[in-house]
């Protein structure tokens, strides 16, 4: 399907605007540019909004705190969650906007832009995608989200404990889905479970009646859904409407408004990194309070991740400013590897040598339209 892809021309076009822009060199009072490469249109635009809200709040907080000497500017590029647009947007962020820091998401997008980031030595941070192979893409590509192998592995023992040993997998036909498929087939049997059937679906699939019929025939104890974006509520509704009564299992990507508000999603079990907005440190409390005041709702995990992704830049750049060092990909990386542990929303976060954040995983259930932690 080509519906969601229409804006390619828009992005190719964006690339042409270069002559109108003054090249900016990172000096004096020139702002630091934080580039965002999120889907702002198309079927995954819901994520783009979640991501941007987190970035925006982090920027406002760091301005209020006067954390950095130089001002900060956000430059937004629309990736549509599609690799090609992302590569073009990334090239613009690096060459035109001279971004010091790029935030991105989505497995296929991350894999496509990582080589560009690597060549330009521009730190690129993912806070949304969880494909396991995002771990070692480039020294300049970091993750502020625990990747799927951490999440998916964490749910295996839980499934066995609940006696949900036969699991059918519905996975989207792209690098993320493939990664979950491989993980499931390799490690679930070792954990004592059986993969009762695997069903791949294209990204633009709308109608899941027929898939539901095949899932029923596989007679699983539970159904694991590995998809993202607008497709997830459709899968859930399609399964429930067509007689699949088994528990539904998923990962943190399912934690979006259109799923939570879906009556059929009641009881869905999913993994996420561990958060406690109510207790905790001052940073977390301020984040949760300001977010609620601004958006009238509890922050979602993605809001938090991208807040953290932006906050991490502020902390590293502030450290470099203190030492009167230039802020660039190499110095940022050195500083990250030197400090390793940072105060971020949700408590102390530590990074491994690949620049991936490690975090504890919790298991949640959707109860009454809200994410409710049920096991740690």
């Amino acid at each position, binding site marked *: 399907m*080509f519906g969601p*892809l*229409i*804006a*390619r*021309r*828009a992005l*190719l*076009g*964006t*690339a*042409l*605007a*270069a*002559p*109108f*822009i003054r*090249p900016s060199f990172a000096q004096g009072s020139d702002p630091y540019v934080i580039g965002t490469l999120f889907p*702002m*249109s*198309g079927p995954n*635009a819901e994520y*783009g*909004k979640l991501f*941007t809200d987190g970035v925006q709040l982090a920027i406002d907080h760091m301005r209020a705190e006067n954390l950095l000497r130089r001002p900060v500017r*956000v430059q*937004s590029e*629309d990736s*549509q969650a*599609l*690799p*090609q*647009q992302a*590569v*073009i947007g990334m*090239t*613009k962020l690096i*060459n*035109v906007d001279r971004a010091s820091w790029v935030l991105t998401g989505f497995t*296929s997008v991350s*894999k*496509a832009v990582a*080589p560009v980031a690597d060549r330009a030595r521009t730190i690129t941070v993912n806070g949304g995608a969880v494909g396991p192979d995002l771990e070692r893409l480039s020294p300049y590509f970091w993750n502020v989200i625990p990747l799927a192998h951490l999440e998916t592995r964490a749910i295996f023992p839980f499934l066995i404990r609940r006696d949900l040993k036969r699991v059918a997998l519905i996975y989207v*036909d*792209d*690098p993320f889905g*493939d990664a979950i498929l491989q993980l499931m087939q390799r490690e679930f049997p070792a954990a004592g479970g059986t993969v009762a059937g695997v069903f791949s679906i*294209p*990204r633009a699939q709308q109608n899941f009646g027929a898939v539901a019929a095949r899932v029923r025939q596989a007679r699983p104890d539970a159904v694991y859904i590995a998809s993202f974006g607008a497709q997830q509520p459709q899968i859930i509704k399609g399964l429930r409407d067509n007689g699949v009564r088994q528990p539904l299992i998923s990962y943190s990507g399912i934690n979006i408004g259109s799923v939570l508000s879906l009556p059929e999603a009641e009881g869905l079990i999913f993994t996420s990194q561990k958060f406690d907005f109510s207790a905790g440190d001052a940073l977390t409390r301020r984040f949760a309070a300001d977010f609620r005041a601004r958006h009238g709702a509890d922050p979602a995990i993605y809001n938090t991740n991208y807040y953290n992704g932006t906050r991490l830049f502020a902390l590293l750049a502030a450290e470099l400013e203190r030492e009167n060092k230039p802020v660039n990909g190499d110095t940022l990386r050195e500083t990250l590897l030197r400090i390793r542990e940072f105060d971020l929303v949700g408590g102390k976060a530590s990074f491994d040598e690949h620049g991936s954040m490690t975090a504890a995983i919790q298991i949640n259930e959707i109860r009454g339209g809200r994410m409710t932690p049920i096991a740690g």
Partner: protein
Amino acid sequence: MIAYLMNLATIVAIFGILAATLNFIIGFAGIFSVAHAVFFGLGAYAGAQVALLLVPDALLACLVGAAIAGGLSLCLALPALRVRGEYFVAASLGLQMMAATLFAEVKPLTGGIGGLVGIPRPTLLGVQIGVLPVAVAALALILFLTARLQRGAFGRTLQSIRDAESAAEALGKNVAAAKTLAVAFACAGAGIAGALFALHLSFVNVESFTMDQSVLVMAMVIIGGTGTLWGPIIGAVILLSLPAGLAFLPFIPATEVGAVQQIIYGLAMTLLMIFRPAGLVGDLSKGRSTA
């Protein structure tokens, strides 16, 4: 900045090749293909695989891309020989959708949605070069060939087919051969553009070769002016730069930039078709345009 401008010029040159070759079959032979991105894709995958498996030689990648796209152009020539008008559009639509499925699913060759990553930078005879000079040279060559073919006997045959197919046949023109050749030429050109695109982005995946891309190239041709030499190039420049100015309008909220761009873009497409249906260049050179 220089690197950035070269990046832009390369993209314009590549889309210029696509638009010029599509214009060749639309404007001169009346074959309204909505499947141009398929041949763009074939060339890109071929070029990418040559660069990944053999040598990243730009010339070799282009030749292989052109050969594969030109060879498989028979898929497009076949319906072009049997049907015209809306039927042919529908056939090319079918071809486009099938090809997109194949591109997404034949993962050993295309990498699926994940695409082929890490395509090495191009060389020419062992020396590393940019894609831009090759792309500009290819564009110039294709424009030159188009102009020659258009004026020569082959061009006249094609135009007579476009205007009245049965009359051309009655006059003893070999309609089948002329159409097949025209399609092969255009598709081989698209294949070259594809190979260059793969080398330029160092990344290709199916999303660049969907129907949407075909429609974009088609719109470049129509808006610029079908059947003119420079119209498609001007169309390519306009369509690539039109949304660019919009990206810098400050009053559009960041979350709506993409949507606003597309709305204005779509509106421009529709309004141009209503008020200047002959295309921008077509109006200037009266009597040449067919739209």
